[in-house]
Structures are given as structure tokens and as C-alpha cells.
């Protein structure tokens, strides 16, 4: 077990923050930054937009959020030039989080409502096809990624139906639509990569997932196994408890 040190810094590659931010993605970034800060560490945020090139040896954590269809189309075209770097980063053990539109672009392919096919990063073995209705509402899932059966709560709003190939789901749907409203899977994960439809945003009410990604990122940069010091999560747990009631679970 490696102790974390005040000098430790996580290098974040934030992809298209000006376009892919529709469901409060900035909240997830604020959680990364603050939970490091409260432990005496820091987050170094690097923003990447259309035309920028990404050096996979330079980042410990990657983030891609959701956008409106129009922005997602633009981003998909540009991602083709960044896909090799993102896959190399994942293969190298960097932590990556793809949320909402992000998970659709992390797969092999996204077919829009008009039938157009957008190539994705291919970092997660999945495909997405836009449906005629949107899957909208509060959602709770159960994941085993950070201990057995940890509940993750959020809100989903997506037209895409995602089908997994040879990749594990991020979690099993307790209540809500999930990847495709049929197979009870939600999101996808491999190595230190997570893709999910859950926003709300995801991390403030699910600090265990935030800390999992941060420990992965620190392990990527500094090696060894990292266990983060606990924080006072009273407010986080309280908001999580209220969100649970929105899918009919007890407070």
C-alpha cells in the first residue's frame, strides 16, 4: 500500500468541455478536484478541444461528458484523430470516465436517429443505436467495482440503446432503463475505464466511484496500490439517500 503525498497530482485530460457538458459534467470535474484537494493533493486540468492532439503518456485520468446531438456529431468526427491516444491511455492503465454521450462515443459505433453512423473511440466493446423514444428518469444500479453490491444513483436521459460486446457492464439496473431498456445492464467497464449513462451529475452523490477513479489515476502515475484517506461524506450520503427515494427505494 502506497501512502499518498501532498505533492501528488493527477493529470486530467478533459475532452471537449465547451461542447460536451449538457448534464452538468462540470460537477464531476469539481468532485475530482476537491476530493484530491481535501486530501492535500491536486488535480491538473488540461482541456482538449477540436483539432488538439492528445499525448497518452501525459495523463492519468480522462473525462468525456455528454452533448447535444449537434455537438456530438462534431466531436465524433474529431475523436477519430484522438481515438488511438485514448485507447493507448486505457491500455496503459490510465483511468477513464465516459458519461452519457461519452459512453456512446467510447464504443465502436453510434447510429444516429437519421441513420448516420458515427465511429467511436472503440475503447469499450459496445455499439449504440438511437431509438425513437428517449429513456428518461431516475435510475439506481448495483455495481461490484468498489466492493460487493454498491448502489449508484443518478438520472438518465438518452435516446441511444447500447448493446455490450465482450465487456462487463458497469452495474445491474435496480430501477430505471439502463443501457437499452431490456437486458438490465448499465454502462460498461474494463481495466480502469468506466462508461455510464448516469448523470446527476454522477460523482457528487456517488463519492465511492469518484474515489475509485482517483485511486486508479494515482496508481497509474505513482505505481503501487493506493488507498485514499476517508472524507466526511455526510452531505453526499444524505443526497444519495434522497435520490434513492426517487426510484421507490427506502431512504
Amino acid at each position, binding site marked *: 500500500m502506497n501512502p499518498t503525498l501532498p505533492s501528488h497530482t493527477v493529470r486530467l485530460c478533459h475532452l471537449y468541455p465547451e461542447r460536451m457538458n449538457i448534464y452538468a459534467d462540470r460537477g464531476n470535474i469539481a468532485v475530482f478536484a476537491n476530493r484530491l484537494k481535501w486530501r492535500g493533493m491536486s488535480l491538473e486540468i488540461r482541456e482538449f478541444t477540436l483539432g488538439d492532439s492528445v499525448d497518452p503518456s501525459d495523463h492519468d485520468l480522462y473525462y468525456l461528458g455528454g452533448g447535444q446531438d449537434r455537438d456530438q456529431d*462534431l466531436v465524433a468526427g474529431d475523436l477519430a484523430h484522438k481515438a488511438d491516444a485514448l485507447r493507448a491511455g486505457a491500455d496503459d492503465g490510465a483511468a477513464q470516465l465516459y458519461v452519457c454521450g461519452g459512453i456512446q462515443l467510447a464504443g465502436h459505433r453510434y447510429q444516429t436517429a437519421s441513420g448516420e453512423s458515427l465511429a467511436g473511440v472503440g475503447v469499450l466493446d459496445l455499439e449504440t443505436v438511437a431509438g425513437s423514444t428517449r429513456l428518461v428518469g431516475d435510475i439506481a444500479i448495483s455495481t461490484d467495482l468498489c466492493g460487493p453490491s454498491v448502489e449508484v444513483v443518478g438520472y438518465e436521459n438518452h435516446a441511444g440503446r447500447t448493446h455490450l460486446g465482450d465487456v462487463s457492464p458497469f452495474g445491474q439496473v435496480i430501477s430505471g432503463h439502463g443501457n437499452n431498456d431490456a437486458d438490465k445492464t448499465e454502462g460498461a467497464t474494463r481495466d480502469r475505464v468506466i462508461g455510464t449513462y448516469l448523470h446527476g451529475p454522477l460523482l*457528487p452523490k456517488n463519492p465511492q466511484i469518484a474515489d475509485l477513479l482517483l485511486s486508479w489515476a494515482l496508481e497509474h502515475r505513482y505505481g503501487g496500490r493506493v488507498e485514499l484517506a476517508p472524507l466526511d461524506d455526510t452531505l453526499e450520503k*444524505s443526497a444519495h439517500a434522497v435520490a434513492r427515494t426517487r426510484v421507490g427505494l427506502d431512504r
Partner: protein
Amino acid sequence: MLAAVAPTVARAVGSLSRRLGRGGGTTLPGVVLLRLDPDAIERSAGRLDAGSVVISATNGKTTTTRLVVDAAKALGYSVTTNRAGSNLERGVAAALLDLGRRRAELPVGSLGVFEVDEAALDAVVSKAHPRVIVLMNLFRDQLDRFGELETLLERWRQMLTNARAQPGPVTVVANADDPNLAELVRSIGNDIDVIWFGCNDATVGLDAVAHASDATTCRRCDHPIRHDPAYLGHLGAWACTNCEAQRPPLDIEIVSASSTATGQTVKVRAGEQHIVVATPLAGLHNAYNIVAAVGAALAVDKRRGPADGTSLSTVATALGRTQPAFGRGERVAIGTRELSILLAKNPTGVNQNIRTVLAAPDPVHILAMLNDRTADGRDVSWVWDVDWEPLIERAQRLTLTGDRAGDLALRMKYASADMSRVVVVDEADAALDDALGKAPDNATVHVLPTYTAMLDLRTILTGRGLVADQWDET
């Protein structure tokens, strides 16, 4: 035969509903009327000899409707309007129901002025055939209900295409400062009559386009849009960095608007003429509402002849007398203190309200109320897109309440607020007392509620005898 009976039945439902105390009876008769007589809107609206004005926006439609009603009355029109919040198709039907009651000829100069929900605009326009369509802004709002902004833009494009094809002239009064809206209106064609309004006071420009911007990319060429400056959210003096797309020349503009927390003086240019509106409606958003209303008034009145200085000064005086609609900058005295209630349910609305609050001398006392019921939007993630940071810096105390107060508390925590100044009080009644109790004598407590939270607050204030029952307001 059925059509002749329908208004009577619907009105009976309305009075029963009012007596049962359900929703004030504002739209239930409209629902019944539409079911019994689907052509009711078309036929009743057709009796208005001066036609109808419809007003739609993400933010500001209620206040702007009040402004247009007051201006039109001052110009001598006999005005039919819908009640605040009853802005779906059935709300317009309920308003027109009152016309059906009058068997005699309506007076000359009968005009309808209707606030219409963004998603109901296409349906209302196709039936009411308005002569004036006021399009004010579209911001991201209630994504769980509307889907993406693009969905609404597409519906509005279809609505305008249909409106242009309708018999009789149509004037569109549109916000030139909203890049999405301006490009949408221009895409309809050159033969549509447009009055463009916007802002031209660089001193009220923002340092940067707000985080929650929905117009960063040119709709013609996909290159970035530049705002020089941005005024409010993505509203501004915009231009594409690549092609010739830019803000249309303004017909009516805010020449200057300098607001305190309690009102402002707005200098307006309308064509060659200048007017000054001194108004209790604070904030730049209300300056936009005022120029939109000037545009609507001129569009209505130009059928009686070209606008002259007399009618414009009549409009300016009338607009200055319009009081805040409930929850929209409304002020309520409570003992030696005062509440200022600023409703908003999307990032741009709250950002603008925060800006208005910060025009007050510091420190400020805040009661923020977040609900997640249908009318608020079930998805509360939008509170993360609000720029709370400047408010947190100036807030002596932040009292949080509402069904999702816990989410607000997290937002404050991750914005590095001093959490000893932030308190969550679950019950709205107790939260109000906390906020008032912690504020000094003669202080104003600024309340930032979502829609249903504002209704909850009004119920409390009504219970304490501090405001009249909202349904009795006209």
C-alpha cells in the same frame, strides 16, 4: 349543437373546480372545452378584430406578456389574456372561453395577448393564427421534458414555416442576440416580416459567455461563434469567426440599462425614436423583456398607421407601470424585513437572478429552494451548471430548502463555500424563518425558488396573511 353548449359546460366545470380549490380552476375548463369543441381556439381567436399576439421563450414570457398587455391597454385595445403559468393550449382555450360568454359583437380593437409554453407554441399558432409572434430566447431548460434544445428549435422552425403560409400578414418579433433564434428566423426566408430587438449597451456586457451556453457554434459553418460582448447567457452581439453570419441589425435596442436590485431605467431606441422606461423590474433580463414588449406593441399598432412619438411615449409610460408578476422580482414586506422572490428553474435564469441580487449592497441573505416536481424538472443536475460562486462569496447566509435541498448543499460544498454559512432546513416554513431570523433589521432576504417551491412559499405567505391568494390576482 355541441359547440354551442360547450362553453357553458366548461365554465361550470371551472367554477366547480375553483370551489373545490383545485388549481384555481385556471385550465380545467380549457381542457374540457378543447375536448368538447376542438375548434374553440380557432373560432374564438377569429373574433378578435385586432388579432392575437403570442409570446414564447424559455425565460421571461410571463413578465413580457404582462408588459404587452399593459402597453396594448394604454394604446386603447380591449385585451384578452391568459393567466400566468396557464400557458399550454388549454390555458389559451380557457382565456378565450371568456370571449365565448359575450354574445354581442366584441368592441373594435379586441386583441388577444397570450403567453405560450415553448413546446405548445406550434399547436397554439396553428389554431390561433396570431398576427404577432414574439420569440424571446431558448436556453437549456428541463431537458427531461423537452429533450434537447435542438428539438424545440426544429418545432419552432416548423411553426414559423406554417405561420408564413397562413392567410393574413404575420410579424415576428425576435431576439437578434440569440444566435440560434436569429439564424432560425432568417432561415425561414426574406419575405417574412421581422422586428429584431437586442442589446447595445457594452457596459452591461459579461466578461465571458456563461458556462451553460447553448450557442458556441455557427449554425451555417460549424466554426466557433464570438460574442462581443455576451450580455446574458448566450445572448449577445455575436458573430461567426469564419463566415458572414452575425447578429442582424437591431430595429429596437437597449441603449442603456443600469439596474439596482429594485429597478432600473432602460433607454430604448425604436427605429429613429428614443424612449425611456423607468421600471420596478430589475435586471438585464427585464430590459430584454421591455424591448420585446416595445416590439410587440409596435407590431400590433402599425396596422393602424405608422408608429409616432405619441404612441411610443404612451407605451413607455405604460411599461414603466407594470409590476412584477408573482415570483418574478416580487417584493413582500415581513415586519422590518423584506423578501425579494426571483423564480428560476434553469442555469441562465438563476445566473441572471444572481446578477440581479448582487446589485444590492452587500452582504446578501439568500433562501434557495430546490424542488424536483414535474413543473420544476425532475432532473436537478442543472444546479451544477449555475455559477453560484459570486453569490457564495457575498452571502452572509445561505439557507437551503426544498425536496432536493441536499443536492444544493453538495453544489455549495463543491464550490468551496464556507459551510458554516450554509444550512439545510427541510421544511420550507422553518427555512423561511431561519433566513428571516438571521437577517438584520431592514435587510432583504433574496429568495431563489424553482416553480413549485415558489408556489409552496406563496402558500406559506398566504397562510401568514402576507400576500393575497395567487389565484385572485389578475
